[in-house]
Structure formats: C-alpha cells, structure tokens
C-alpha cells in the first residue's frame, strides 16, 4: 500500500509550547491516503483533526516539537526547505478553510485573489490568468464570472465566497486538497451545493482530499474512508459508508447515538458523560475510558494499540474483538456512567 500512497503520515506526534511548557496535541497518528481518494477526519473540538492538517501543510506555530514522518509522494515533508517548500505549498497541496471571509483580503478584488497564485507561482501572463479565473468561477457554478472578478469579498454571500475559495484552491491543480470544515459555517442548503461542487472538482481534477468535519453523516456521504480522532489520537479507521452503521470504537458508537435524528424523537438522548478531552489532559491508558460505558480495569493501564479488525478497519479499543457488531445496540443496555 505504502508504495502507491500519495500521503503517508507515520507515528506523528506534535507538541506545542503553551505557557512555558510543551503540551501534546497529537499522539502517534498514522494513516495513508491514496491519489484521488477522499479521507474524512472526524472528531470533536480539540481532538487534533485541524492540527493534523496544519502539520501536513507545514503551518505549525514556531517552537512546535514534531516527531514521526509525513511523506508526500515519497518525499519527507519536514525536510523541505526554501524553494522546495514553496513549491509544495503552492502547487502540491491547497487548503480550504472554514471561514472564507477571514481568509480573503477584504480590500482586494476576487479577480486579484484568484489570479495571484497563477501569476506569481506559475508565471502565467495576467491576461491568461484572468481567462483561467473566469473559467474556474464558471466551473464552481458562479454566474457572471467576469463581473464577479471585479467585486470585493464583502459583496459576495458566504456560500459564493466559499466557492471562490474552492476555485482558488484548485486553480493550481494541486494533488491534495486539505479542507478544514469548509461547510460548517454555511446553511444546510448551501452546504449541499458547495459539497456537490467540491466533490465534482475533486473527481474532475483527480485530487486527493483530507476532509475535516465534526458531522459523521457528512463525512460518510462524501468520503471514501474515515478516521475518528479522540484526544489527539486516531481511535478508529474504516470505510466511510459503514462508520455509523457498524462503528469500531465505543466513542464513535456513542457519538452516533448521542446525535438526535430527524425521523424520530428519542425519549432521552443517550448522552456521553463528561466532556471531550485534549491529548494534553488525557489520562493514562485509553483516553476515552473515563467516558466509556464498556471500560474495564485493563483499559486504564496502558494506551491501547490500533488493532486491525478483520478486513473492515482499525480500532484503538482492546475490547473491540468481543464488542464488534454490538456497540450500537448494547450501549443502551449498559449502566449509566456518571462523570
């Protein structure tokens, strides 16, 4: 598998300096991404999903302590310097952020925003870059692209601006798109429209995508595979479409069950006790154990390894072989855990 991965993250551990001490934000994260595939990163706030993507884009704050490997097409990303790093960031990976308004310059026109990368990095003549920008805007479903190029970000709605961001991200034809909650700030109907465009662009350009979201349903409908983060660790990895039907970790199962449904009202939501922890605050042993309905003494002793569960995927739960297949049903019959 490794031979053909576009992106390979191997035993990645990241510590950041906070108030004079080093705090762990990612712990032993490993995964692979093949060309053209979409991988979903799901988890709650502070779980490390954004930090993973920032590490891949080499956007960590100064003073960060990184161990492990990130390889892009076989090249060690942390060894990139100068021109090579610029080429990697400008041409190989592109990033789409949650808040498009905060990531566009309010005093520059949409046209400047779209053509800047083409002119400076690809040395495209201004005229040609503008023609390309018009083409890109049309591709992301924006009407009157010529007119939009002359407008400023404040003249566009959130959904339109996010489409402009997508257009800018794919302009240089990168091989990997890093999308950090690109639709979280949008209304549901706009989210659906933007997702259609993002998926279409991804398949047309043959790009791989890391898609961060906290929405399990969204991840399972737009990604091929999904990994679930908890407290800076990967706790589960499997095919996206099976994630909420047959979860491989008690945490994922608990998330699926805690979410209310449109179709029916639950008498009481099976809420998880306590609150999400960060890697820094995580206890010894399994980070999820204090909130887990299935935790046993063994869970609190050492950090469980990522176990292979048949052909289906990986799980960082030592009890998975016995629990597998019964998580969604059984969780309701176990005793209520108090925080």
């Amino acid at each position: 598998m490794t031979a053909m991965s576009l992106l390979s993250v191997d035993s990645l551990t990241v510590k950041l300096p906070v108030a004079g001490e080093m705090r762990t934000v990612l712990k032993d994260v490993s995964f692979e991404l093949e060309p053209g595939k979409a991988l979903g990163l799901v988890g709650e706030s502070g779980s490390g999903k954004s930090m993973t993507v920032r590490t891949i884009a080499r956007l960590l704050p100064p003073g960060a302590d990184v161990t492990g490997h990130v390889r892009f097409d076989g090249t060690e990303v942390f060894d990139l310097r100068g021109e090579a790093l610029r080429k990697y960031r400008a041409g190989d990976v592109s990033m789409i952020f949650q808040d498009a308004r905060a990531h566009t310059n309010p005093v520059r026109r949409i046209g400047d925003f779209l053509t800047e990368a083409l002119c400076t990095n690809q040395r495209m003549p201004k005229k040609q870059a503008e023609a390309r920008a018009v083409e890109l805007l049309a591709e992301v479903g924006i009407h009157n692209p010529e007119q939009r190029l002359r407008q400023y970000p404040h003249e566009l709605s959130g959904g339109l601006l996010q489409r402009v961001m997508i257009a800018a991200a794919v302009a240089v034809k990168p091989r990997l798109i890093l999308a950090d909650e690109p639709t979280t700030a949008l209304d549901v109907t706009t989210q659906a429209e933007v997702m259609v465009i993002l998926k279409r662009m991804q398949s047309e350009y043959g790009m791989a995508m890391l898609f961060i979201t906290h929405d399990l349903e969204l991840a399972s409908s737009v990604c091929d595979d999904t990994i679930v983060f908890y407290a800076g660790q990967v706790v589960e990895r499997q095919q996206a479409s099976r994630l909420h039907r047959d979860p491989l970790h008690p945490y994922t199962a608990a998330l699926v069950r805690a979410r209310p449904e449109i179709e029916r009202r639950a008498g009481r939501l099976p809420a998880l006790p306590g609150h999400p922890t960060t890697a820094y605050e995580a206890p010894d042993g399994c980070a999820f154990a204090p909130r887990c309905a299935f935790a046993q003494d063994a869970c609190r002793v050492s950090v469980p390894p990522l176990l292979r569960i048949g052909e289906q995927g990986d799980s960082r739960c030592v009890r998975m072989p016995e629990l597998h297949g019964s998580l969604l049903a059984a969780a309701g019959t176990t005793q209520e855990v108090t925080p």
Partner: protein
Amino acid sequence: MNTTPLLAVEHLGKRFGKGRHQTTAVADVSFQLAEGGSLGIVGESGSGKTTTARMIIGLEAPSEGRILFKGQDRTQPARGVKELRERGRNIQIVFQDPYTSLDRRQRIGDCLAEVLGVHFRLDREETKRRVRELGELVGLDERQLNSLPKALSGGQRQRVAIARALAAEPEILILDEAVSALDVSIQAQILNLLSDIREERGVSYLFISHDLAVIRQVCDDTIVMRHGAVVEHGSTAAVLDAPQHPYTRLLRDSVPRDGWDPALSTTRS
C-alpha cells in the same frame, strides 16, 4: 386548554433602514405558544428568526403587528423600570455563543445572584440557597459556581446561561441556537437537560434552530421561516415527515444522512 395562549404573535413585521436602503427582515409572522408548549422556529441565515426573537423580548421594536403575552399587549416598549422587570420575569433568552454572553470578570455564582437581586427581594442566605439550587438544576457544582467563566468549557458555560435565564423564573424561555455551537456529546447533555427542566418547571420554549434533528427532539410544533415570512406551520412530526412547502422539503433533503448524495438534494448546481 386555556383559550388565551401564553404568547401570541400577530402579523409581526420588522423593517430596517429607510428609503432606498430599506429591507424587510420579518413580514407578517403569526404564531401562538401554548402554556407548557414548545415551538420551534427553523430557517436559514437571514430568515428573520433571530429578529423575531429580539422583538418578543423587547430588544427590537416591531414595525407592524402585535405581541400578546397572556392576552396583554406588549408591542410597545415598557413604560418604566417596574414594567420592564416584569417583562423580564416573563420571558428570558439564551443566546448561541456562551463565550460572549457571559461577563468574564464576574464569578458564575455572582452572575446568578445578580439576576435574583434584580427580580426578587431575598436576604443573603436565601440568595445563596437559590444560587445553589439553580446550579444543581443545570448540573454545576459549588466549585464551578465560584469560578470565572474562563475556567469553564463551552457546555458548562451554556449551562450557566440557562441557569441565569431560569433565575428570573420565566414562563417562556427563548433559546436562540443555544446548542448549535456545542460538540455532539455535549449537545445531547444540554438537550436532555432542557427536557428535564421543561418537565420539572413547566417552562414553555421558543426554540430557534437551523438544525432539524434538534428541533425534532425538542419541539412539539414548528414553523419554517424563509426571507422573513412563515412558509410552513404545523406539528413537528407533520412538518418534518410530510413537508408541504417545497422549501421545507429542500431543507430536509439537504441534511446529510445515510446514503445521502449532495447532488440529488440540490435544485441548482
């Protein structure tokens, strides 16, 4: 059931700006909230749901229509402090962002005590007892009551905001996207808390949200708003299971779920 609803809103409208710059935020909105009931307002950004809420608690003066609380007209601003406080005791609100809706220099317990002081004549011991009671109701312990907001997580802050609203012993609690910013696991805790409080206290909810699943969990009746107007109104089950208006159907189909394909739910792409 009592013939006078707890809250009635009749042909409510709100326009902002003048002349060429005039925009209509809310137009001809009517609904009723029964005693002990729970009404959901669904809509996307700019649909006028928050403006409607702001008019009901008196933060915004309506351009048209009437707001009746127990049959009593309160469309006009309150005359005098006494009336203003009385209105505050009737209807309270919880906002979306628990990071900006709390005073960061005020301890949680003091924040609750301040509200109690405004609305009731209590001695120190009684105030202390009530603060503890409110803390218990929303699941905050003594240590958390003595801390500043910065020591609390988002979910805990939202509990504080709910306790603060309940301190005035309101008959109506308006929840404006009150669980939208929370993580899934915390959101479930707060939703359960809200249904407990409703059972225990008999408070009526006006629940504003863009999240249809959350609306299903909390609300008996639901209105769907678009561009400032109500497009559909009915029991939550009817609105969500058999939507009549195309916009309600679009909203429903846009929610990602098992086997969802974004391409099939969008009208234009």
